[in-house]
C-alpha cells in the first residue's frame, strides 16, 4: 500500500505563498493543534497541568501566549487552542491529554483548520477590508475569534500592523484565500 500523501488546505502538495508590495500571504501547514477545555470543577488542576507543559500560564480571554514549543490561545470560557510544530508534535492531542488527564477535555484540531500568515507593512490596510475588529488599536498577543468574509476565524496578532496569523475552517480555505487575495489586490 502506497504511503498516503498529504494535501495542503488549498489542495496543493506544497504550501502556497503569494507576494504583494507590502504583504506576503503564506499558507502555513506545519502546525499541530489541539483544543483543551477544563473539566467543570477541575479548572485549577487543568491550568496547573497546562502550565507544566507550556511553561506559561494559559492565556486570558482574547489573547495568546507562547511557551517553549507551544503557543496557546483563548477560544472561549475555560477553553484554549494549543499549537505546536507538527513534525515534532504530530500527536499533540495525545500528548496534551496525557498531561491534563481527567482535568481537561482534549480534542485533536490539527486538520480542522487552515492557516494563513500575513506579513508586511500593509496588514492594516488589507485586513480592514475583511475584518470588523479594531486591529489598529490592537497589540501583539491579541487572539480574537470573529467572522471574516462570513467564515468563522481566529486572528492572532503577532506584531500590530505587520504580522498576523489567520486560522479558518479547512474546508473554506479556498474562499478565505480568495478573499485575502482579492482584498490585497484591491489595496496594493
Amino acid at each position, binding site marked *: 500500500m502506497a504511503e498516503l500523501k498529504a494535501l495542503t488546505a488549498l489542495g496543493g502538495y506544497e504550501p502556497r505563498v503569494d507576494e504583494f508590495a507590502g504583504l506576503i500571504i503564506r499558507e502555513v501547514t506545519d502546525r499541530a493543534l489541539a483544543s483543551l477545555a477544563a473539566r467543570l470543577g477541575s479548572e485549577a488542576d487543568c491550568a496547573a497541568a497546562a502550565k507544566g507543559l507550556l511553561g506559561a500560564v494559559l492565556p486570558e*480571554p482574547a489573547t495568546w501566549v507562547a511557551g517553549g514549543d507551544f503557543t496557546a490561545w*483563548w*477560544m*472561549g*470560557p475555560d477553553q484554549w487552542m494549543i499549537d505546536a510544530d507538527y513534525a515534532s508534535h504530530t500527536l499533540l492531542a495525545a500528548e496534551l491529554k496525557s498531561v491534563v488527564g481527567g482535568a481537561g477535555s482534549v480534542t485533536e484540531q490539527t486538520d480542522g483548520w487552515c492557516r494563513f500568515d500575513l506579513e508586511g507593512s500593509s496588514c492594516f490596510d488589507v485586513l480592514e477590508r475583511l475584518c*470588523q475588529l479594531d486591529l489598529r488599536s490592537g497589540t501583539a498577543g491579541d487572539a480574537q*475569534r*470573529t467572522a471574516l468574509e462570513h467564515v*468563522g476565524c481566529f486572528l492572532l496578532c503577532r506584531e500590530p500592523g505587520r504580522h498576523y496569523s489567520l486560522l479558518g475552517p479547512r474546508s473554506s480555505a479556498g474562499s478565505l484565500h480568495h478573499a485575502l487575495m482579492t482584498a490585497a489586490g484591491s489595496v496594493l
Partner: protein
Amino acid sequence: MIINHPILGPRDAQEFTYLGDASLIERPDPQAENADETFHDYVYLRDNPAGEHQELWYHEQGDRSWLVVTRNTLTHEITDVQLARDAARARGRSK
C-alpha cells in the same frame, strides 16, 4: 448593533445569532404533574414587550457564549449583558 460582551467587550451584533426571550432558560420540571401545561407555555407563550426585554444571543462567530442581553426593543439601548450560564445558575438551574 454593538453588544458589550461581558468577557470580550463591545462586539458587532453580526457575530451573534439571536434566539429570543431569555425565559427559555427556565425549562419547566418534566416530572411535575402539570408538565403538559408548563411545557406548552414554555414553548409557545412569550412576552413581546415594547421596551425592556431580556433575550438570548449566541456569540456564534466568537467565543460560543450564550448571553442574556437586556435590550430596549424600542430604542435598541442595551442596558445589561450577562453570560447566560451565570444567568441560568442565578435562576436556579444546575444539572
